[in-house]
């Protein structure tokens, strides 16, 4: 890959994880405030992460790294809702304070 392609790819990789973080945070805020708008913002962040994944698929990275990125993109989706559900179940009412 050329020098410029390398820089762009690296920045896209960082953006990929950053958008995953935005998705996670917005999802949590949406659940906390029961706000649909935040939920939609979270979905938009995930969509942007998807676009980033497509852009990464167009870079000069080897095939298997692209496959890993796609698998990661899919894996990031359930993390916030599953973690949230786990936390809600752990913090069942009456058990909040020790």
């Amino acid at each position, binding site marked *: 890959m*050329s*020098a*410029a392609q390398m820089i762009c790819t690296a920045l896209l990789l960082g953006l990929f994880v950053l958008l995953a973080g935005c998705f996670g945070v917005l999802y949590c805020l949406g659940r906390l405030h029961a706000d649909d708008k935040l939920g939609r913002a979270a979905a938009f962040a995930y969509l942007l992460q998807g676009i980033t994944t497509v852009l990464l698929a167009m870079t000069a990275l080897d095939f298997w790294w692209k496959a890993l990125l796609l698998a990661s993109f899919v894996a990031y989706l359930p993390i916030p809702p599953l973690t949230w559900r*786990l936390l809600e*179940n*752990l913090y069942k009412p009456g058990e909040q304070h020790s």
Partner: protein
Amino acid sequence: MIAEDPAFWRAGAISSTLVMLVVLGFLTVDSLATIRPGGANVPAYTVINKEIRYEFDVESNRYRPVIGAEQLLFGRNYSAQEAEETMRLGKLVIQSRNCMNCHTFFGNGAYYAPDLTKAWLDPAWQQMWMPMTQSSTREDAMAIFLMNPEKFPTWSRQMPNLNITRKEAEALVAYLKWMSAVETNGFPIHFGHIQTNR
């Protein structure tokens, strides 16, 4: 729900840790065999008696060290034992002078000064330092520079004088020559060749 049971996750923590450690153990045994001097990736110390180049290998699609014909170092041929002692001394120079906190070796260290992985192959020795030090060989230029870097600056950021003796300097040069022959999976990429496509 099983996911809320600490014992489930404790079992998960123990098993995932153990599995990963076992895999690491196996890979370590294999890696150590590969990186011992004379192993697949690391040449024996007597490689300092040979010419070393760094060339693109089409088959593996990366740059690789190439060991060539005999090339004396400081006008002598080192026996296996002499080479090992020289390497030992060279490594002690690197540690005692704290080189890793300005330079990098295989890219690890500090970034104030150049990476030394392929320093032996740097064109600057022939282009700049051999004339400056009035040396007839690359290794002489390197040794003279190392003993008194303040006398041979090449830009405004200078290497300090670390009281390196002639014997230490020669050992260090030999060490750098050996290091340049280590197979590093292509790092640094196209050493010594300037790319024109951005």
